[in-house]
């Protein structure tokens, strides 16, 4: 039975190739694996906007396929392999949890190039790319400390992975430059996407005295709760001002478009090679939404900070960085923590009165 199925599939593929032979040979097939639905208005939405921008750039030269709502972990391996088998030559897997499955499929398909977002494992046909979102978080920390009346910030976190922890640390480091005694309350939702739970977490934080909501989860639910309660919040991944016209201070927007264009161009030119790209404000992978709902002096300070980080004059993780235990963290980058330390961050800095779950 299995053999018949394989034969049938092969026959279908052959006929398919016959039908579309001419165009398929000319077009570069590019595949995408998404963690959420393209309409999540957050993480996946931004990846898909970037895909569309890339298609617009290359027009007929590329053909894209995306699979949405692909769960992280071993299950995603089948989806990635499916794209590889369907003739995609370049495959973007856009969530941290796809790291091992992507690596596995990459070993199996040496002639296909893979791009894994936010991970740290590479191979000769597997690149990694990510954003220095902590740069934006540092600016948000400064704004939050300026705008908070209660001196308590509310932070909705997803999973205790380095990217999220470095975001929390950058926030408090930024906030401490304004108010050394600033407090931060952290709630782990243990999900990237559950609007109801994100809203409940935002309510809990506000009920406990936080007056600024920041989030590392993907839906605009928390923004909407803040708006309803007349409090302030930061958007996440994309522009969320629509959900809180009087609440959104700014939002860290993930602008993957230029990177996708660059990598597809390299693939078309035959110059693709395995790399590790980590872009921030400077490379415009991280873009700040307009600074709104704040007085002019705060806005000015935010823009100056943004400019300083962009020009490299200001490093969010400037040494000395002091951990919760009061000891200084080793400064591998000379004047600031090096990329490896940020990418593998698994400690809270001094001033956070909480513990990383599971530590």
């Amino acid at each position, binding site marked *: 039975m299995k053999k018949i199925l394989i034969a049938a599939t092969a026959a279908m593929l052959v006929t398919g190739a016959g039908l579309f032979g001419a165009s398929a040979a000319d077009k570069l097939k590019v595949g995408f694996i998404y963690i*959420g*639905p393209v*309409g*999540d*208005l957050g993480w996946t939405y931004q990846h898909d906007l970037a895909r569309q921008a890339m298609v617009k750039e290359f027009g007929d030269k590329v053909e894209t396929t995306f699979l949405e*709502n692909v769960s992280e972990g071993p299950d995603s391996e089948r989806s990635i392999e499916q794209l590889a088998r369907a003739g995609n030559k370049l495959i973007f897997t856009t969530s941290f949890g796809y790291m091992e499955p992507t690596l596995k499929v990459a070993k199996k398909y040496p002639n296909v190039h893979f791009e894994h977002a936010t991970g740290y494992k590479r191979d000769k046909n597997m690149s990694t790319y990510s954003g220095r979102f902590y740069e934006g978080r540092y600016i948000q920390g400064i704004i939050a400390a300026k705008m908070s009346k209660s001196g308590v910030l*509310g932070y909705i976190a997803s999973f205790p992975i380095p990217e999220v922890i470095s975001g929390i640390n950058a926030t408090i480091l930024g906030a401490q430059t304004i108010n050394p005694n600033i407090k931060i*309350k*952290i*709630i*782990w*939702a*243990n*999900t990237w*996407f*559950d*609007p*109801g*739970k*994100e*809203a*409940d*977490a935002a*309510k*809990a*934080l506000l*009920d*406990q005295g*936080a007056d600024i909501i920041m989030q590392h989860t993907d*839906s*605009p*639910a928390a923004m*909407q709760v803040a708006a309803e309660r007349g409090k302030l919040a930061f958007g996440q991944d994309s522009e969320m001002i*629509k*959900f809180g016209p009087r609440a959104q201070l700014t939002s860290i927007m993930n602008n993957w478009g230029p990177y996708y264009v660059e990598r597809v161009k390299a693939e078309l030119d035959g110059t693709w090679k395995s790399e590790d790209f980590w872009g921030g404000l400077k490379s415009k992978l991280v873009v700040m939404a307009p600074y709104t709902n704040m007085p002019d002096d705060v806005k000015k300070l935010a823009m100056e900070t943004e400019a300083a980080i962009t020009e490299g004059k200001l490093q969010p993780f400037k040494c000395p960085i002091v951990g919760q235990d009061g000891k200084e963290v080793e400064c591998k980058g000379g004047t600031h923590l090096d990329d490896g330390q940020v990418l593998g961050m698994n400690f809270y800095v001094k001033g956070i*009165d*909480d*513990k990383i*779950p*599971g530590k």
Partner: protein
Amino acid sequence: MGLIEAIILAVLAASTPLLLAATGELVTERSGVLNLGVEGMMIVGAACGFGGAWLSGSIIVGALCGIVAGVLMSLIFALMTLGLAVNQVAAGLALTILGVGLSGLIGARFVGERITPAPKLRIPGLTDIPLIGRIFFGEDAFVYLSLALVGGVWFFLYKTRPGLILRAAGDNHASAHALGYPVLKIRMLSVMFGGACAGLAGAYLPLAYTPFFIPGMTAGRGWIALALVVFASWLPGRLIIGAYLFGAVTILQLHAQGWGIGIPSQFMSALPYLATVIVLVLISRARTGGSTAPAALGTVFVPDR
């Protein structure tokens, strides 16, 4: 507003969609049909409910759209399992997968739109009563409707003749059939009621809970509703306890994190499910004489003429 009051209000809102969906499923299962498609019916209810409210500007129209969508989805299930005698488990799972896809399609044009959420009740005099006013008279109407619905279902199942016949169909379809009761018709109506409740539960999310539509926004609540029916051992009264317990643990674990209680958050996120398992064990130990499930639950019935 006191913190305790705030927590109770959050628990009410978080529990309501679970209670609505579970009530519908309880009736469906009591008639002998296991519909695992609650999540699918809910998410389609959410998409249609939001769409209806957005296009018409009325929360009531939205809620009705959600109900109708849930019923239509349940009719697909009824056609498969009652009409064609397909395996109920497989058909239910298929319904969920269908619903998730369909809701994305229906909801695509509503993503990013906003509506004014269902208003909180405001009854002069009553809502202003200190301590209890906001809780008993100050949430949105869905909260109180869900409680009334459970009461209605209890009354129907245990105090009316049609309710007795429905339970008979679920416990022994052959006997019910032999007595001349239209088993398939009873089951179809029960499945439709389950669909209506699931559709309304789904619609509650974008109409009152988080007033926007995003694909996948039910985030597994349909599955929790299914577990609640078992948790309640198919008794409507226990459904209220189960739903509110589940809601309370969910909200309290968020607050516990905010207070910085040093328990790993992963453990606290798992607590509601752990509580379900513990209660299940307690229930099954406390009862002798086997399961309390409807005896014919999940079995296909083809009447012989």
